[in-house]
């Protein structure tokens, strides 16, 4: 075992977190929790960026992470606003009951 942790270890951790996020989106019925799972996926991707920034000696990855965070914040604000509006109209957080998009 070497002294420093290799890039692959970070990437595998990131992949695992991402897949957990995907699974969460699939199995949960509560919109709010689905939303949290999406945040999990975003964080997994952020980890990849930071890891690459470290191992490629380039700060660009960290900058991208900041942008991702800003976009995530915007997304959360909008998403939660939608959830509040939805709750007001449907009195439900169950994703199965939200099917107004049906054509």
């Amino acid at each position: 075992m070497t002294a420093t942790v290799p890039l692959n270890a970070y990437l595998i951790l990131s992949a695992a977190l991402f897949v957990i996020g995907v699974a969460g989106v699939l199995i949960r019925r509560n919109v709010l929790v689905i939303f949290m799972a999406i945040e999990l996926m975003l964080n997994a991707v952020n980890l990849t960026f930071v890891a690459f920034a470290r191992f490629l000696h380039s700060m660009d990855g960290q900058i991208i992470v900041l942008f991702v965070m800003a976009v995530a914040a915007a997304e959360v604000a909008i998403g939660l606003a939608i959830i509040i509006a939805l709750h007001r109209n449907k009195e439900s957080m169950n994703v199965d009951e939200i099917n107004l998009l049906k054509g």
Partner: protein
Amino acid sequence: MIWLIPIIPLAGSLIVGLIGRRMPRTLATVIACGTPSLSLLLSVMAFVRLLQMPAEGRLLRSSIGSWIASGDFSVSFGFLFDPLSAIMALVVCGVGLLIHIYSIGYMAEDRDYHRFFALLNLFLAEMLVLVLADNYLLLFVGWEGVGLCSYLLIGFWFERPAAASAGTKAFLVNRIGDGAMVVGLIWMILLFGSVDFQTVLTDAPTVLVYGSVTASLLTLLLFIGATGKSAQLPLYVWLPDAMEGPTPVSALIHAATMVTAGIYLVARSAPLFQLAPVSLEIVAWVGGLTALYAASIALVQTDIKRIIAYSTISQLGYMFLGLGVGAYAAGIFHLMTHAFFKALLFLSAGSVIHALAGEQDIRKMGGLRQFLRVTAGSFLVGALANAGIAPFAGFWSKDEILAAVYASGHGPLWVIGALTAAGTGLYMFRLYFLAFEGKSRLDAHMLSHLHEAPWSMRLPLVLLALGSATVGFVGVPPGSGLLQRFLGPVFPASAHEATAEPTSEVVLAVAVLAMAVGGIVMAYRYYLLDPQRSEALAARYPALYRTFFHKYWVDELYETAVVRPTVTSARTLSELFDARIVDGSVNGIAALAARAGSLLRRLQTGQVPTYILSILVGAVVLLGYLAFSG
């Protein structure tokens, strides 16, 4: 400055057409008649400037700006004022102004007074664009513009079915000629890479080989356009019907100016035609045959305006005859004199129609001279000029054309021209004697309110009569008069022009004059002294009479040979092809889309988890491809 000449009437047209109804009638009239006056003034000023230049370099140009610029090809909104354009612009503005003034009286009681003057001004603007353009494309803009105005003015009284269909007929027949002209213009762009007069006409001898098929076809395409606009065989049929329009329109558009656009086009393209002897020969023969043909029809018509209309076709034939034998200046000379006396004839006829409250049948007139002295006098001057009696204008120009025809060695064409001269004398004076002399055949009601026209109509008559009597002298002596020397540098040197010896020229002129006088004498004997004799004559040659009277059945021929097959096939196509195949395929595609949509709609469950799952499966497949494809 030159570009102002067509712009001013255009502005007048817009003002009178858009807000004319809201302003006092007098103001509208002043604007409508003021714009041609300004244009005339500017034309005269430009003309004077032209005269101060040396004879060989008389040319004024001005450009408003670029119109089309595409690669090497460019067209500008450019105007050109050379001796040829100058003559045309002066005739158009001068005659146009007089007819505007005449229309004040003639149209006074019409409820669409403003529309009439707006269109008349618009016509004048387009006509000036046509004669002042410095390239073929801008000329074509004016060409189509005058065609449009002609259509609108023929159908001015559109509530009358005859007027509406006459307008349509004029428009459609002109399309045939214009179609050929467009093809010619495109070909010209391909050959010369330009439509500019100066470029095309200067390069012509190097680009086109003398007598080549290309030169002949190109000039013939232009000439077909000219036959449409200038009412020559076989596209003349619209002009007689165009008499459904108001009489000032007939005078301005269908006699003095627009129909001469074809003459102008051929004269302007003289360097091109000079390279195509075959085309010139065709131009000459079409002109000569049209002259005789139209004169023969004019002999037996009974509608005062139609007789003059056929006379116009006949005189235009003379002009083409002159152009065809290379006597370009003579053709333009006749164009100029014709503009005066034909406008005079039409306006006099209009005065008669005005006095008789719309009656146009000369069999119901007679003896009008006692009541309409000014009109009768001016009509007589016009008739003498048209018949080519010395010293009136028509004599000098017609004589010069026929002299050139003879000098160029076209014997048969000279005979045709001389016969036409006799026919012209006959039909002009048949009209004069039947309408103005002899016993009155009017009913009492008509007689009671017979009145001479107001001053605004009489003034143009008198001025035009003066012009018709004297304007011919600018071309005296033949071949080297003021006009010919002025126009000379514009046209390529022609081998034929004025090479006949003076003595033989005088003999020829006297011979033609004798023919014309013979026609007049015949008219006097048959129609004034003893009207029964004309009927006896008609009875003796029934076939000939009927042929003339029914205008050689050409309208009927076109109806069966062209119009009806076109309409029938169009109807068949619309029923079979359009309704079944076009609509069918369109509806079929629409139905297909609808069916596919209703199938695909089942995928749209509205269940968000389903969507997420689809996205995931898609992402997995894509990622698999990316990760393991190499």
